[in-house]
Structure formats: C-alpha cells, structure tokens
C-alpha cells in the first residue's frame, strides 16, 4: 500500500513554489516536505489538508491511495 501525491506538479503549477515556501505555509520543515513529496513519509490527515489548502485544491487532488 502506498500513498502517491501530486505535490511536485502542484508546486510547479503554483509559480514554481519551492519546497521551503510550501514548508513555511504548512508549518513544517523543508526536509519533511521533501520526504512527503518523495513518498517516504505519509503525512497526518491534518497535514494533508494543510497541503491541499496551500494549493487551493481538494485533498484528493493532492493525494491518492495506490494499492500494491
């Protein structure tokens, strides 16, 4: 089971937002944003909603469940 995400694409579409800028907006470290973006860390529901809100999209537009 794996949670995939569209954070990289969404950052690009939002004026090439940097990982540091996204981290600042959601109150996390840049390293955590990198880990989430690379699929190494699955964020809490609260953090996932914050990320979606930072891009102004629904949570399902950012994250999706990809069963093995």
């Amino acid at each position, binding site marked *: 089971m794996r949670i995939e995400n569209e954070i990289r694409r969404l950052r690009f579409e939002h004026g090439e937002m940097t990982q540091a800028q996204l981290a600042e907006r959601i109150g996390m*470290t840049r*390293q955590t944003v990198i880990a989430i973006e690379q699929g190494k860390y699955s*964020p809490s529901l609260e953090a996932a909603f914050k990320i979606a809100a930072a891009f102004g999209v629904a949570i399902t537009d950012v994250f999706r469940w990809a069963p093995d």
Partner: protein
Amino acid sequence: MSFREKSAWIALAAYGVVFGAYFFVLWQSWGAAYARGLSIGLMIGAVVMLVIIAAGLSILAALSAPKEANAPADEREQLINLKAERIASHTLSTGVVLLIGALLAGWNSVLVANLLLAAMVISELVKASTQIIAYRRGA
C-alpha cells in the same frame, strides 16, 4: 541537514567522545579505581564536559539556523523522536535488568555502577543513531 538532525549528530559526538574518554581512562586505571571505590570526580568531570561540549555545539547549530531552532518539531520529527526514545528505553531497561541480576549475583558495586552508566550512555547513543538513520532515510 535539518537542525534536529544536527542536534542528533551533536548528541552522538558528545556522548561518544566524552564517555569514550571516560571509560578509556577508567579501563586504564581499573585496578586503582576498583580498590578506592567510585571515582566521583572523574564521573562529574565527564558530565560537566558533556554539558559544555553539547551546549556549545548546540548554540553554534542554533546560530547557523535560528529560525529552524526556534520552531517547534513538526509531526515527522516528533514521530522520529518517539521511535528513537522507544528503542533507547528498551536498551536501557535491558541493561538495568541485567545489572540487577549482576548485583544479586554478588558483582562488585563499583563495577555495576559503571556498567549502569555505560547502559545509560549506550541508550543515548542508540537514540541519536536511530534519529540520524530515520532522518537520512526520510521517514
């Protein structure tokens, strides 16, 4: 490297260097230490050195990234810390249980006291190492 990963490296280095030196000195003079009892001066000296080295390096790390140093740990960092604390506490508990057995078996109290200190140091090294591995892996 995040501020908290730097902090874990600082803890690993400070505990490793200070207590590596402490146990090396104790090992070299074990006969005398065994005869005169616990070397409180050496032990206090090691703790003072640990505080000075760890505090000094932590201040330098905080000065290099003041914003990050003042920010609270985020959820991933808290999770990494909890995992590391759990493994370290199991390590320390195992050491304490074994040393209670050693005391009951009649081991010398000076030896047991130093082995207890070693168990505490090892648990701190395990904690810092676990944090570093988790930060390096990303989760």
